[in-house]
């Protein structure tokens, strides 16, 4: 029997040298005339230990990481194939505090199974959700999702059950399920990890959505910056068709559902749902005015459910275990778990799934271990390029949609980007405006022109030109963008800008903000 090893095929691990590590392992095994089998799993989600090489032993899987290609010969000589001690041996990965303290509902299989093995998927609880959904029937499935309290994970936090109910009640010959996998926010990678590391779960979630609302066709719209996810989803869809998860009479039922992958083309605004639908229709990604809602007139004018990857990926668990199992996690109106993404200058960067309610300070300092540079943390941007910058004085904010909103921030897709004390917050505010200018779809003036004026105004402030007057002008501009923009690209760009200005006035030439002490 050959020795089984696991080396992630996930894009980040590959970017860190995982493919070359596999090659080096194969060479060392050949030298010892050993037969090895390398499974390309997803990443478990702690990137400082990637590439993580795991060896299957009698006591379970033993990990070594980070393993770079040049480390392999010495590691093998030291007994890596036998699970021997070494400075890079991390033991059983699931016992590391970073993993042990998580509540993994959506990410339960990620990093553990072979993402492209349908048998592995089923052996680890896959298909239970769809099978139960088929027993319950459409109306009861919608009710389960409503009762679970699941809110859209793409950013806006709209209740998923209400969206499904609307589509279920709207008449239409053809309805669609569209999965938003545009994941454009800097600091986010959970969608990517789902698609690369557990693609059948997303397919199952979409199939359940199809059953619930009466849709027979789905699309997953993946950004072109994610070539690994595109390939992983395409392969998994093929397999799902062969195994009866997609196609006619799915799971042996009377329902049919099939889906395809579509690729974006480098436009951030195409993550906005109506812009995404335009793009899927083969048009420019211009944002549509609402109403009509996509639920009434979506893709090709037909009733359409459009949900984020994480929203749809949460569905198989909710159906398999029942809505209460999911709903009982969380705080306030934020139910269930959130796959939080720790990014930027942070020691323990990676994916951390946990019930809502954990404080920002715990996320950054306890779980994340503070800045990787070892310097003090100065600012944290939560929710991508449209999210606010929070100073340590706001680290008591719990991870909850309403709590963040109450402090002029947002959770968005739960990316947490950490900056140390070398960050220049005027520069970050300028970048927010510049990004808006580059990515604006051009439909509304406050967004298209306002963002360009914003960059110019910030440049003047930086140069000390008419500082007071230009600060007033910048605030006015933000106000106009907030009120006069059709979508959140123009409407929310003021969040990073104003939060930088409010919490870090000293970077704009003003006196220091008063609230500094808390952390």
């Amino acid at each position, binding site marked *: 029997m050959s020795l089984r090893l696991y080396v992630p095929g996930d894009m980040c691990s590959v970017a860190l040298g995982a493919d070359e590590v596999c090659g080096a392992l194969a060479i060392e095994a050949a030298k010892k005339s050993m037969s090895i089998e390398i499974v390309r799993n997803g990443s478990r989600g702690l*990137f400082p230990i990637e590439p993580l090489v795991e060896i299957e032993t009698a006591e379970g899987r033993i990990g070594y990481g980070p393993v770079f290609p040049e480390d392999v010969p010495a590691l093998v000589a030291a007994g890596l194939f036998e699970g021997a001690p070494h400075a890079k041996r991390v033991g059983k990965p699931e016992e590391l505090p970073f993993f042990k303290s998580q509540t993994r509902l959506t990410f339960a299989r990620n990093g553990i199974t072979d993402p492209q093995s349908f048998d592995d998927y089923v052996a680890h609880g896959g298909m239970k959700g769809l099978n139960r959904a088929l027993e319950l029937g459409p109306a009861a499935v919608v009710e389960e999702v409503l009762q679970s309290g699941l809110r859209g994970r793409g950013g806006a936090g709209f209740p998923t059950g209400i969206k499904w109910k609307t589509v279920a009640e709207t008449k239409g010959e053809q309805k669609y399920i569209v999965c938003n996998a545009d994941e*454009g926010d*800097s600091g986010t990678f959970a969608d990517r990890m789902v698609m690369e590391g557990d693609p059948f779960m997303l397919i199952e979630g979409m199939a359940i959505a199809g059953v619930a609302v009466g849709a027979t066709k789905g699309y997953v719209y993946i950004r072109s910056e994610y070539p690994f996810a595109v390939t992983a989803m395409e392969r998994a869809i093929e397999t799902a068709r062969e195994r009866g998860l997609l196609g006619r009479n799915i799971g042996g039922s009377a329902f049919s559902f099939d889906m395809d992958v579509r690729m974006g083309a480098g436009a951030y605004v195409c993550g906005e749902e109506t812009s995404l639908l335009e793009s899927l229709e083969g048009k420019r990604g211009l944002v549509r005015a609402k109403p009509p809602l996509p639920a009434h007139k979506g893709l090709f004018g037909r009733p359409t459910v459009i949900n984020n990857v994480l929203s749809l990926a949460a569905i198989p668990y909710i159906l398999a275990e029942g809505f209460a199992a999911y709903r009982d996690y969380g705080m306030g109106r934020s139910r269930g778990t959130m796959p939080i993404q720790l990014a930027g200058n942070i020691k323990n960067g990676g994916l951390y799934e946990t019930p809502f309610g954990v404080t920002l300070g715990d996320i950054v300092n306890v779980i994340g271990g503070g800045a990787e540079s070892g310097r003090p943390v100065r600012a944290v941007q939560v929710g991508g390029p449209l999210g606010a910058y929070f100073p340590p004085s706001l680290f008591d904010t719990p991870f909850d949609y309403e709590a963040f909103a109450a402090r002029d921030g947002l959770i968005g897709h739960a990316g947490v980007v950490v900056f140390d004390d070398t960050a220049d917050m005027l520069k970050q505010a300028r970048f927010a405006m510049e990004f808006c200018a580059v990515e604006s779809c051009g439909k509304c003036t406050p967004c298209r022109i306002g963002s360009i004026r914003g960059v110019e105004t910030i440049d003047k402030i930086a140069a000390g030109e008419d500082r007071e007057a230009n600060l007033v002008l910048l605030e006015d501009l933000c106000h106009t963008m907030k009120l006069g923009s059709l979508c959140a690209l123009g409407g929310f760009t003021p969040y990073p800008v104003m939060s930088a200005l409010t919490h870090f006035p000293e970077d704009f030439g003003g006196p220091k903000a008063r609230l500094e002490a808390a952390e």
Partner: protein
Amino acid sequence: MPDYIAWSPEQAVAVIAAEADKEGALMPILHALARTFGWIPDEAVPLIAGILNLSRADVHGVLTFYHDFRRSPPPRHVVKLCRAEACQARGGDALAAHAERTLGQKIDAHAHSAGGHENVSLEPVYCLGLCASGPNALVDGRPHARLTADRFDALMAETVR
């Protein structure tokens, strides 16, 4: 460098026809052309418009809306450096300045092949989803993480030449 084939209208028509029956076929067609030829010349516009029964203006509008589609022949090598916030927080700006200096060109989405190193085009990308391990880049489509100035130079020496 990916193996693109030289532009040919006959080949293009075959590529377009293979995708034309899909729902909302225009994006898959543009991607297929880009994959085949590495760029989409303006000559392709009437071909697509004819097959899909759209106006040329519509096709042109879509082609020019998206950052991904090149309208001039591809450079031999493309370096896409992540310029988004999480990479900025990890030294992305310093790496960007280094890359601009060593390759002798500004990071520019539209100046494919303009100035500097004749073989390389240095372009921005806004997040690759590797945000805990930056600064990151795609070099000829392959991802690279935790780049430093030294690792960047080594990578360029290996790939670009």
